[in-house]
């Protein structure tokens, strides 16, 4: 039986990750993303489920020596499947830098061209300008 606090952890991580407040990073293992905190770290990854045509999502909590203390799978909280999937996608997006890349490209695409400033017409020569 998974600790019910994990449910709160999933919600908080998802909320903060969507707000860009969790620094997810890619690890040496493809598809595994981690976020570190002052004493602990969390890792999230996905794995194809061999029994059903679906993907399992796993969230691990590690201590400050990198030792895994506990882990939960989406099957521990079936009603949290979508949140865990969203959290994984969010972690992947931030960890791979996709989030920043898309923001940058969208900002560049959305930038309006500055209106072409027509050069001011030179002041016309009047009789007053003629010195003689």
């Amino acid at each position, binding site marked *: 039986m998974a600790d019910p606090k994990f449910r709160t952890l999933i919600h908080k991580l998802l909320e903060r990750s969507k707000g860009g407040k969790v620094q997810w990073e890619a690890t040496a293992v493809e598809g595994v993303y981690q976020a570190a905190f002052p004493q602990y*770290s969390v890792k999230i990854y996905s794995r194809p489920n061999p029994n059903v045509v679906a993907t399992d999502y796993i969230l691990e909590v590690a201590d400050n020596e990198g030792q895994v203390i506990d882990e939960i799978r989406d099957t521990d909280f079936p009603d949290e499947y979508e949140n865990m999937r969203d959290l994984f996608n969010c972690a992947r997006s931030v960890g791979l830098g996709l989030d920043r890349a898309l923001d940058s490209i969208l900002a560049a695409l959305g930038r309006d061209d500055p209106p072409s400033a027509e050069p001011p017409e030179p002041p016309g020569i009047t009789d007053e300008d003629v010195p003689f």
Partner: protein
Amino acid sequence: MGGGRLIFWAAVASIAGVAVSIIGFVVTIIGVWRSRSAAEQAKAAAREARQGILELETIQDFTAVTTIMEEIKRLHRAGAWAVLPDRYTALRKLLGAILAANPDAPDDQKALLVGSINQFRVMENAVERALADKTAPDVVGLNKIVSQKLDKLNEVLLTFRLKP
């Protein structure tokens, strides 16, 4: 008349005795205060010296960390996978020592240390698995992670060096 003089001198002696007692008491108080103040100053000096030694050790550990990380990058490029797990372990121990010696460090610095320890544990497991499976790990991907961590740890090292 002689009796009156005697009483007078007895009173003077009594007053003088009280005065000497009061002065002695004040001198004792000042002495105690001074010795306590000196003890506290000595304690503060010892605390500062200890803190200074810890900071110096942290700088030395950081320098050793950056040296090992550079070495790890070279070993990755050379494909010296068999010797790498020991280097990852040495690196994690040093990072752990820095973390333990600096409990008052800012949260972002502690998170960086914890994240680095975790990264190198994952890396160690990945290399061990590759060794067992007789496959070659992704050198570019591994060195990219090492370089990213190295840059961030160098920034923290700089803050330690700039400490007054």
